[in-house]
Structures are given as structure tokens and as C-alpha cells.
């Protein structure tokens, strides 16, 4: 089942990186994962061709607006996970993917620009909840965060919390291993060591576990 849609109209917010980290970590933890590459720039497809796609993961490429709902439907079954990666634009494809989501994750860097544009995804989710008369769980994850959080980061975090936005912890820190996924393909465990691998794997696994908790109804704080 759970259909996880990674959405932000902000380009370069870290959507595809989040999708690959989540997909590979959930697969490593034992879930069959289908990843839908809905971005005409084909980031996920390029990742899948770079190295060996880890066991338990299937990547479907080039899913368009007309196909998205009927592509998701048959995959939306108990005991498996679907992850949808979207282009960083405001499109009907994004809104249709969200209509089929069990969880929408909006990655954003802790900058005012990312937060402002990312908020458009949150507004869209609210409208869809009303139109479709169903709750669409959603959460924000900060990406490319630094060891020491900037004032701007703290401010944005406070403001999102005040608005009742669910923030996924741990955030995805800026790490060479994460950007190297698109260079080597595969997952963090198959990649030649890049920086502090243990910390990178711990970060990605902790994030995936926090997402899993939300899928099975154990929301974060």
C-alpha cells in the first residue's frame, strides 16, 4: 500500500535524494518498493541505471499525468510501498499524485525560499483534502542541513511547528554520501566509502524509520 509522494514545486529541494534514500532504506528493512519516476528529467531512472538496483526495488520511468492514477492503483496493495518522485514544478501531475497519497513528504532546505515555495505544496494538500473529503497525512523533512543550525533554520522550524506542520526527525543532513548516490547508483551500503558512512547510513535509516512510523500510525512527536 502505502503510497508516499515526494512533492515540492521548489527545484533542487532534495526530492529525488529523499526518494532514493527512503526507497533504499525501506527495501533494506524488508519492504518491496516500487519507485515511480514522474520527472521528465528522469533523476530516479538515471540513478537506477548508474549501478545495481538494490534487491526489492523496482523503478518505473516516465510516468505521465494521464497515467499516474492508473499506474498507482494496481500497486497500491497491502504489504508494499510505492514512492513517487516528481519534478520540481507546480503541475497537475503533482496534484494527481497527491490525490492518491497515503503520505506526502515535502523536502525543503532550511531557507526562506525553499520554505516559501514548499508551502505551496502544503496549501495544495489542504485543498485536496477538502475536495476529496479524506485526510492526506503529510510531513516536511529538512534536507541538506548542517551540523550547526542557522538562525534562519531555527526560525523556519519554529514557524512550521506553530502552523502544526509535522516535521520528520532526523532531518537529512548535507552529506557527500547522499549526493554520491546519483554518481554510483545502488544504495549507501553498496557505495565505495564517501565521508562518514556510518553516520550517513544512520541518518538515512533513522529517517526511513520515522517515515515507517507514520505509515503504520505512530506519528512522530
Amino acid at each position: 500500500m502505502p503510497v508516499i509522494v515526494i512533492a515540492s514545486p521548489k527545484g533542487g529541494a532534495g526530492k529525488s535524494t529523499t526518494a532514493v534514500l527512503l526507497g533504499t532504506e525501506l527495501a533494506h528493512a524488508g519492504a518491496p518498493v516500487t519507485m515511480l519516476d514522474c520527472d521528465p528529467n528522469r533523476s530516479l531512472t538515471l540513478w537506477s541505471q548508474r549501478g545495481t538496483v538494490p534487491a526489492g526495488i523496482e523503478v518505473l520511468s516516465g510516468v505521465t499525468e494521464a497515467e499516474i492514477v492508473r499506474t498507482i492503483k494496481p500497486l497500491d496493495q497491502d504489504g508494499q510501498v510505492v514512492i513517487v518522485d516528481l519534478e520540481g514544478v507546480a503541475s497537475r501531475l503533482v496534484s494527481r499524485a497527491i490525490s492518491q497519497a497515503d503520505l506526502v513528504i515535502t523536502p525543503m532546505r532550511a531557507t526562506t525560499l525553499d520554505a516559501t515555495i514548499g508551502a505551496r505544496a502544503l496549501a495544495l494538500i489542504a485543498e485536496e483534502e477538502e475536495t476529496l473529503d479524506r485526510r492526506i497525512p503529510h510531513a516536511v523533512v529538512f534536507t541538506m542541513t548542517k551540523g550547526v543550525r542557522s538562525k534562519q533554520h531555527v526560525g523556519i522550524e519554529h514557524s512550521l511547528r506553530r502552523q502544526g506542520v509535522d516535521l520528520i526527525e532526523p532531518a537529512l543532513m548535507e552529506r557527500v554520501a547522499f549526493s554520491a548516490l546519483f554518481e554510483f547508483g545502488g544504495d549507501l551500503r553498496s557505495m565505495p566509502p564517501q565521508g562518514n558512512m556510518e553516520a550517513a547510513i544512520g541518518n538515512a535509516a533513522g529517517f526511513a524509520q520515522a517515515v515507517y512510523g507514520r505509515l503504520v500510525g505512530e506519528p512522530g512527536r
Partner: protein
Amino acid sequence: MSEERPFAIDLGRLKTREKPSDAASLRAADERAAGLGFVEREPQGKRGRKPSPRTDQVHAKVLPPIATEIAAEARRRGVVQGVLIEEMWQLYKDKSGI
């Protein structure tokens, strides 16, 4: 590799949930989304301008301040931004001995 898993997933707990996907619901959602600027953005067959003959275009997304600097420099020299990227690539190749 079968090193220990940081956490394990209980597949029995991953349950599917009903979601409306009938044409009327989707149309209503499309309309609301369009009101927020989430509109159709797929290439429209043959309409409009022919694609540029210069293939393999790079569509780099860079930080806004850098984009502004690159755009300003291209304007100053009267070249397209791709020319700057071609020059940067040459410098990069020289530097890394490719």
C-alpha cells in the same frame, strides 16, 4: 550483504487505504489544484515553437544568487549562458585532467 538491520518492517502492518479515483473526484481536484497554479504542464504534441535544434541541452538548477551572477555575466558578454557553462566545463576538465 546481510549485516544487521537498523530496523525491520512488519509487512502485515502496511495496509492499503481507499482513495477516491473516480473521474468526478479527480476533475474536482484538478480544478482546485489549477486555482493554486498546479496546472497541466506536459508537452502538447506538435503545437507551438519547434524544439531548438541544439540538442542535449543542460538545464542546470543552481542557487539563486549564482544564477543571477551567471545571467549577468552572459548578458554583459552578449552570449547565451550555455557558452559560459561550456567554458566552465573546459576549466573543470583542465583542472581534473579529464
